[in-house]
């Protein structure tokens, strides 16, 4: 392997992540590994890359809305091919979107739930055109089409069902060559049929799983790998030149405590408010995250992770106030709340949980941490006998517009305890619901004001208790501009 610190990028790189994907289907798994890979091999209608131009066309030549916002038209580039050489037509796009629409519960469950619930029908007027009929305007659609789930797959492959996912095919910059799930090693090589023929340096990617973060870092230092993903904050002080932090990747999302409203203790608004008051967010950041974190811990959902949100004031710790809130609740004289935690998804989660557990002792609340594997947590939550859950929301680009409906999921799904993002709904948060409904159709100029209002309302109702923003850091052997990422999982490669 090349010597350490040589800035020259060869045409083959090795990326080490902490696990291999449980599934390659982004509809089944939203883990970083899966999305990271999907972005490499998957073709999308619009481009996710490079932050600012998110939503710009990729496989699509254009994505345009009708003036009433109720019809979107996607024009495909001509001569598109999948990596296996077969032609990519609008039929494939329709099949791909229908697959998502027909997947049960997606509308309510997934990141893309809001956009999906606003799409009525997808049709293909001709081989190069796709038309989306909307039930309500959704200005963020172009950006939404670049989320990992929106990968375009061959209709014939989709028809094959599960077996397609043994070796999926799409029209991304790379194609999957070997999928060695037993050895935790995937290889990808440049897709010869990629629409963009501009010469690119990297022709081959090895994607390996190295469970232990220290080993990952060690392998990076010794030159075995070129890019190590997901390095815990307290290791970052070991990252010294010539290694570089992929600072673009820092924003790893936000962590909060989801609430089981059916739980007699945690379901009580006063208890939630008390918890929120008793949590010392500065301490969480300092001790659990090794001080490595972006932004301040704030309320709400992705869009208010901006570093400059005015809601920072609401996060101050106040034990006296917290205790006062507990008067008359089940926790007045101490109580126990089961806290479900996932230990194998992000290194931050168990640490934050422990700090919170310790902090809540001050108001007599005993958190009983229950570790659950990532793969089983949804199931576990459905069982119902839990109070709080350390939710970690991955963060997509700062796209205020398209995730408008995110905050307040579709009550029709009836699922108020799901994992992926829709927050639990209960009838007693009418204010929040009304605001959220307004946001779904708001113009982009009206949105920021609405968001502030939502945040205020949110702070009162606390459908979930925000804790902190998270860092999700990759380390590269090359200077920072050579390999970096956008969001948490979109790798930008030379």
């Amino acid at each position, binding site marked *: 392997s090349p010597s350490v610190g040589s800035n020259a990028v060869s045409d083959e790189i090795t990326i080490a992540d902490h696990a291999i994907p449980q599934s390659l289907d982004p509809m089944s798994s939203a883990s970083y590994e899966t999305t990271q890979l999907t972005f490499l091999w998957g073709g999308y209608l619009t481009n996710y890359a490079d932050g600012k131009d998110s939503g710009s066309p990729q496989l699509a030549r254009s994505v345009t809305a009708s003036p009433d916002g109720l019809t979107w038209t996607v024009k495909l580039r001509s001569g598109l091919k999948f990596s296996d050489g077969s032609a990519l037509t609008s039929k494939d796009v329709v099949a791909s979107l229908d697959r998502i629409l027909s997947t*049960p519960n997606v509308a309510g469950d997934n990141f893309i739930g809001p956009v999906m619930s606003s799409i009525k029908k997808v049709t293909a007027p001709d081989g190069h055109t796709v038309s989306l009929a909307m039930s309500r305007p959704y200005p963020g659609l172009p950006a939404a089409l670049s989320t990992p789930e929106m990968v375009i797959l061959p209709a014939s492959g989709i028809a094959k069902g599960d077996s397609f996912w043994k070796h999926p095919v799409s029209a991304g910059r790379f194609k999957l060559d070997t999928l060695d799930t037993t050895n935790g090693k995937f290889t990808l090589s440049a897709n010869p049929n990629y629409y963009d023929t501009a010469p690119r340096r990297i022709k081959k990617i090895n994607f390996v799983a190295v469970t*232990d973060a220290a080993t990952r870092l060690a392998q990076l230092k010794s030159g*075995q790998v070129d890019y190590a993903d997901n390095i815990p904050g307290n290791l970052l002080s070991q990252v010294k030149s010539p290694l570089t932090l992929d600072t673009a990747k820092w924003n790893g999302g936000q962590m909060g405590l989801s609430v089981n409203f059916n739980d007699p203790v945690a379901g009580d608004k006063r208890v939630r408010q008390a918890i929120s008051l008793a949590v010392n967010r500065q301490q969480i950041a300092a001790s659990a995250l090794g001080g490595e974190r972006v932004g301040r811990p704030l309320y709400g959902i992705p869009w208010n992770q901006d570093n400059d949100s005015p809601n920072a004031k609401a996060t101050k710790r106040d034990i006296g106030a917290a205790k006062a809130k507990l008067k008359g609740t089940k926790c007045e004289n101490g109580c126990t709340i089961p806290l479900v935690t996932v230990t194998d998804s992000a290194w931050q989660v168990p640490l934050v949980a422990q700090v919170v557990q310790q902090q809540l002792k001050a108001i007599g609340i005993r958190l009983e941490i229950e570790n659950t594997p990532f793969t*089983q947590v949804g199931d576990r939550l459905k069982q119902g006998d839990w109070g709080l859950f350390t939710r970690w929301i991955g963060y997509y680009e700062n796209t205020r517009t398209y995730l408008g409906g995110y905050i307040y999921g579709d009550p029709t799904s009836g699922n108020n305890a799901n994992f*992926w993002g829709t927050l639990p709904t209960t009838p007693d948060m009418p204010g929040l619901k009304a605001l959220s409904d307004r946001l779904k159709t708001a113009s982009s100029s009206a949105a920021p004001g609405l968001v502030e209002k939502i945040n205020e309302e949110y702070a009162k109702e606390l459908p979930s208790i925000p804790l902190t923003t998270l860092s999700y850091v990759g380390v590269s052997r090359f200077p920072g501009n050579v390999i970096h990422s956008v969001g948490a999982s979109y790798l930008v490669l030379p």
Partner: protein
Amino acid sequence: MSSAVLPGPAARRTGGRAGKRLAAMASPLVQAIVVTLLVMVITFFLIRTLLGDPAVVLIGGNTGASPQRIAALRAELGLDKPLPAQFLDYVAGLLHGDLGNSFQHPTTTVASVVVNGAGVTFALVGVVLLISCVVGIGVGLLAAGGDWPVFDNIIRVFSLIGLAAPGALIGLVLILTAALGGRLFPAGGWGSGYPDNFQYLILPAVTVSFWLTPIILRAVRERAGEVLHEPFAESAAARGMSRTRLMLRHVAPNCAGPVLAIIGVSLSYLISGAVIVEIVYGLPGIGRAMTTAVGSLDFPVIQGIVLLTGAVVVVLNLIIEIATRVIDPRAAR
């Protein structure tokens, strides 16, 4: 009882000596088969009663799939049948040499997963055994045979530490020192072909050997010490046999029994130790396959792995037993 209760030579020669010996060899074989079957049966029922529903996990417990879809998947995986029926299916498959397919990756056969992982793990175990036996026996003999109290004490201290230190800790310290500081060996990972792969095996093997070597070393030292004080060794020494010759010709073979016995007893611990270390070093052995399989409730894979490791342990024990008998026919009593 009296010392003279020995079978007379005449008694041995009469009767089918070869037949008896065959029978004596066959009975461990039968036992080994029974044990392997037991392992299979226990595993089958244990995982199915202990662990949850693979269908839910497979579909992605997190996406909230409909009960119908889960039921369909259960039927597809054959999990809807009653346990005994499932067991019969499994056994029928086994009889055809078919371990089934992975739940998680339906086109992957369990055999390929297991063989793949086992290749790595048993290569690791093999290297560990090699290192431990060479170092353990060598140093053990030196410590027992040489008259160097200081050396002996150093060895004692080292073996105590090796014995008591947790493998994972040693592994990580090794990674951080040998691999990073000295850049001698890769800090983990796995290559693509064999001579190349050995360099990835060295550190993990050393890590596990840290535990096994002291055990062998101590046994050898103890046994060798005893043998050296046995009258035959003393009189050989008194007749003028050199120390080296005595150690090699007489003491070493007499240590073989305890060493073999220890290896036999340690095998399953050894494999478990290897699994932990594999995970630390990121080797694609059965350890990784197994943690993944348990996490995703991939029953056929769990079963295949347990069956394979169980069978390997049993077969190795069988070989050890036969070897012990060949080395020391008294063991066959």
